[in-house]
């Protein structure tokens, strides 16, 4: 950044976050690179192109490493003198996002290379499996990443990285190569060489930053103090272990950047209060830092996450609470300091997750409940004993299971040891019902996407429906698994990842990349969505058709085909007079459990393409909407195209028995069967969490959910937007109750004037 671009108002070293905030928000859009610092993106691109042209026959891992080297050693760099952390390398895409593969710049030079290799592979070696998955996505049976391979959802092992530094990793590479001796393969030699290239390039980059910071310190006397600190930090990290809290944060952010520039997505940023605590504690004990200043550093550090997403993308996750490998609790003063920073920043990113133990203190519960009450509702609350047991059941040793991280949104993976491909596929559990009722033919597209399981009119009873459902799901899951395994086997050709490989044990020791089974644990996630719709649809058929004989199966099929057109009375019966998941109803809950058990056990029978296990999950994320768009009318009364149920929760407006009954239902599922996560979304009324008693109520709700064995829960407090939406779509909110002490009324039954009055009350109230 040139001196002219900097606002050189006199400033102290500390207490500048609030005044820098707007500037920091735009840090990736408005970066100016000094041409003297390196090659322009165009020149860099040409340099890379000529390298690749001259080295076509080099193993891809070496091509990748050398492109990385060219970018890191020749690309332009910039330091923002108002910022505490440096990170800006001009590789053609600073405003990176998770969906940047769809951007014209493809996410920068390295990502474009990976993307090219991905498309080559999708059109070639894995063409057949790619096409099979594409058709499944089109039919709304599932969704997943391009080519059927989730290369993201990486959780680097920060503790190990900090302990070794990149210099230490270079030593490990040398030792591992030596240990293999004459058994080492040419492939392994190429991999080791690639590791050395990328770590040396990364160290060279940090040295370039150090030199630039020194130069700027002379040019910008008002920022001299901070620039000298930066220069000192960059001459130490990430080559060596961090010496201070500031250096630890700098190390983390820069390596995170480098991994992502290389082409992986770091979706968990780590266990904040364990990884950074030793550095924080040492600084405080030595008098180098105050808690207030540490909090400011955290804000500068975290704001980068927000500046990247601008609040519009899936965020990244920092974890708090939980336990050390030996089972002792982590929560410490840094936990609370960071939560304070999070509250004061008041930004939607980064995302936070909290791991609760039976021994977690009242203070932690209350602090988290306060944050939720005040609108910080992106936090996921994990039930640690259950999450750990679920991993142990799938073969992860206890000590490793205890250092899992919720990756991305909620999917656990052992930090620095597991490559989980956690979002490899999201399966529509309700689509199986539709296919079972239509002999495997998708009524929307007319395609025969599943096996022939017979004309539903000939089914003798509910057991036949269930059998057809299982056959449809079996067929889909087995084919999906085969397709994913094919994509996994092509991973080394798609995206060699030497930078991240050193951050995941045992890639170096085994001499294998992250996509070659190098990590200690190699798993694939199968996420099940729409449990409520599958359950409610099946239970409605069981009750209304086979038990009460109120409608024939033929009548129901006709109504579904017509999207309930002219059959509104039947639809109302199905909606209001048959059992629904989420109400502590034994029939509905029993069936949901049956579906969940079937699905999870089916998934757990698979071995993935890298030889590891497959892991089941139950949640939906945005697939509730997109999968819903491709699912026809269902016997639960849901019309064609409407959203599926969110996460583990009841279908929209169908949980009519309060949140406690919803929790009763959900906790009847076996949470240890969902090692890849299972999350209940709970929506609370603002008045329910008001005042001290509301806060205590929320704490009790969280504690009871956890003690009943729920897996994870996320709270939303409904707001004015919800009420406006309810005015537009009253049917979706038929059970939304406006509750005030001692009384309640359905929001949608209020007159328009009364609705406005109520909205005004919650807007201007508290």
């Amino acid at each position, binding site marked *: 950044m040139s001196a002219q671009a900097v606002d050189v108002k006199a400033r102290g070293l500390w207490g500048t976050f609030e005044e820098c905030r707007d500037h920091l928000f735009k840090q990736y859009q408005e970066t100016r690179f000094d041409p003297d610092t390196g090659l322009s993106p165009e020149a860099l691109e040409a340099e890379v192109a000529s390298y690749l042209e001259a080295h076509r026959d080099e193993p891809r891992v070496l091509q990748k490493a050398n492109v990385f080297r060219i970018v890191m050693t020749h690309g332009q760099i910039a330091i923002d003198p108002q910022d505490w952390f440096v990170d800006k390398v001009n590789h053609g895409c600073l405003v990176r996002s998770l969906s940047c593969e769809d951007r014209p710049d493809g996410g920068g030079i390295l990502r474009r290379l990976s993307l090219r290799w991905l498309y080559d592979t999708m059109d070639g070696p894995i063409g057949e499996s790619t096409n099979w998955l594409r058709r499944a996505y089109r039919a709304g049976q599932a969704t997943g990443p391009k080519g059927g391979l989730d290369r993201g959802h990486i959780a680097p092992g920060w503790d190990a990285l900090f302990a070794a530094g990149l210099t230490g990793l270079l030593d490990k590479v040398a030792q591992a190569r030596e240990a293999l001796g004459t058994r080492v393969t040419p492939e392994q030699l190429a991999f080791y060489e690639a590791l050395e290239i990328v770590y040396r390039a990364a160290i060279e980059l940090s040295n370039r930053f150090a030199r630039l910071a020194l130069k700027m310190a002379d040019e910008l006397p008002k920022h001299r103090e901070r620039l000298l600190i930066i220069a000192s930090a960059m001459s130490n990290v990430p080559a060596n272990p961090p010496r201070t809290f500031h250096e630890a944060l700098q190390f983390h952010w820069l390596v995170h950047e480098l991994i992502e520039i290389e082409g992986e997505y770091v979706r968990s940023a780590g266990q904040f209060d364990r990884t950074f605590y030793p550095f924080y504690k040492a600084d405080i004990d030595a008098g180098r830092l105050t808690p207030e200043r540490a909090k400011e550093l955290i804000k500068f550090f975290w704001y980068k996450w927000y500046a990247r997403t601008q609040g519009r993308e899936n965020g990244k996750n920092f974890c708090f609470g939980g336990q050390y490998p030996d089972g002792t609790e982590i929560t410490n003063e840094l936990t609370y300091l960071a939560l304070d920073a999070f509250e004061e920043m008041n930004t939607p990113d980064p995302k936070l997750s909290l791991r609760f133990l039976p021994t977690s203190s009242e203070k932690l519960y209350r602090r988290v409940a306060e944050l939720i009450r005040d609108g910080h509702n992106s936090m996921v609350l994990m039930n640690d004993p259950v999450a750990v047991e679920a991993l142990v059941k799938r073969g992860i040793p206890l000590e490793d299971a205890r250092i899992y991280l919720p990756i991305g949104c909620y999917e656990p993976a052992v930090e620095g040891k597991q490559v989980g491909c956690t979002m490899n596929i999201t399966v529509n559990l309700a689509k199986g019902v539709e296919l079972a009722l239509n002999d495997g033919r998708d009524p929307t597209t007319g395609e025969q996407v599943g096996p022939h399981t017979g004309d539903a009119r000939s089914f003798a009873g509910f057991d036949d429906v269930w059998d057809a459902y299982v056959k449809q799901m079996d067929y889909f899951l087995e084919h999906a698994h085969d397709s994913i395994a094919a994509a996994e086997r092509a991973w080394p050709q798609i995206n060699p990842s030497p930078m991240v490989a050193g951050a995941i044990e045992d890639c170096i020791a085994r001499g294998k990349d992250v996509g070659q089974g190098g990590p200690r644990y190699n798993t694939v996630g199968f996420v099940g969505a729409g449990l409520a719709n599958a359950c409610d649809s099946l239970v409605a058929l069981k009750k209304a058709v086979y038990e009460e004989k109120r409608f024939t199966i033929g009548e129901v099929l006709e109504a579904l085909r017509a999207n309930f057109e002219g059959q509104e009375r039947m639809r109302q019966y199905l909606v209001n007079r048959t059992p629904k998941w989420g*109400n502590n109803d034994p029939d509905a809950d029993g069936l949901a459990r049956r579906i969940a058990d079937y699905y999870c056990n089916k998934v757990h029978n698979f071995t993935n393409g890298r030889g590891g296990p497959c892991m089941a999950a139950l949640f939906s994320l945005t697939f509730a909407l997109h999968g819903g768009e491709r699912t026809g009318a269902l016997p639960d009364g849901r019309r064609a195209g409407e959203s599926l149920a969110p996460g583990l929760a009841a279908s929209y407006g169908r949980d009519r028995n309060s949140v*406690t009954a919803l929790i009763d239902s959900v906790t009847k599922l076996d949470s240890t069967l969902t090692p890849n996560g299972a999350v209940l979304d709970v929506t609370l009324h603002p008045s329910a969490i008001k005042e001290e008693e509301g806060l205590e109520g929320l704490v009790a709700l969280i504690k009871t959910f956890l*003690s009943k064995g729920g897996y994870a829960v996320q709270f939303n407090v409904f707001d004015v937007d919800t009420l406006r939406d309810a005015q537009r779509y009253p049917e979706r909110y038929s059970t939304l109750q406006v509750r005030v002490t001692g009384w309640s009324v359905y929001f949608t039954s209020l007159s328009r004037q*009364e609705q406005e009055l109520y909205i005004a009350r919650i807007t201007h109230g508290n």
Partner: protein
Amino acid sequence: MAIEAALEKRSNTERGEGAQCEGLIFDIKRYAVHDGPGLRTVVFLKGCSLSCAWCHNPESISPRPEVSLHPERCIACFTCVKVCPNQVHQFGEGGEHVLERDRCKQCGTCTESCYAEALVMVGKKLSVGQVMEVLNEDRAFYEASGGGVTLSGGEPFMQAEFTTALLQSCKAAGLHTAVDTCGNVPWAVIQKTLPYIDLALYDLKHMDPGEHKRHAGATNDLALRNLRRLSKSGVPIEIRIPLIPTVNDSPAHVEAIGRFLASLDNIVGVRLLPYLRLAGSKYASIGRPNRMPEVDTPTREHLETVAGWMQRDRPLTIFINA
């Protein structure tokens, strides 16, 4: 709705004497946080001995079941017209659904066949055993929060036998109990339940007998006398005051309340409930004339001022549900 779930329950006869006793319930709410300590389930009993102009649960007033109509849910299938034995249902020229309520015998035929739930029977007969089944479902939540069960209404003591039996069952089951009462019932009824009540939520509306009669349909003599007796009984009492601008929020009146409360024992708190004019649709749904005062919701500032007036003589623990 928890009340529908309760209807599905088979009363557990092992729950002992009184389990078969039936009450008329119009709602059961789980996860209530402002009706006594902790997380609570509130059972709303139908029938009240007062008829306050500001009542926001008008469906609680009549001691008989009532058909409520929610036109926004109607799918115009006209099944109600076909099945009603008493020609209660008619549709006007513009499609508006009119109920000839004088003819309605509350037989439930229309509500049973109204799948869209545009017609709902308010008030269901439930046994103590059935209600207990629902109350027990949230036991884990009560235990985690120090919560329990609250009987509300209507006026729970109007169904003396049922209320007593239900409270006894709750105590036998180890559940914390609260009763929300207007106090306008014979003392003997309240007295009989005292051993089974952990907290009384006692409504106080107006100190002046004439004003009380004008707005609530009866004088406050009995309610105030019962409150004095109750305050000697040892049961902790939370006073609940619906604060209605121009009706009961003048400094003189509020100070009078404060003086009265200062003379009582066992008052653990006073809760100010700001008037909210949102029940118009409820009145319409059961065909009851809406007499709700046309005044605005008091602001938090006003409530805090009122709380100040109330404590002129003696400090009180005042909660404001703004």
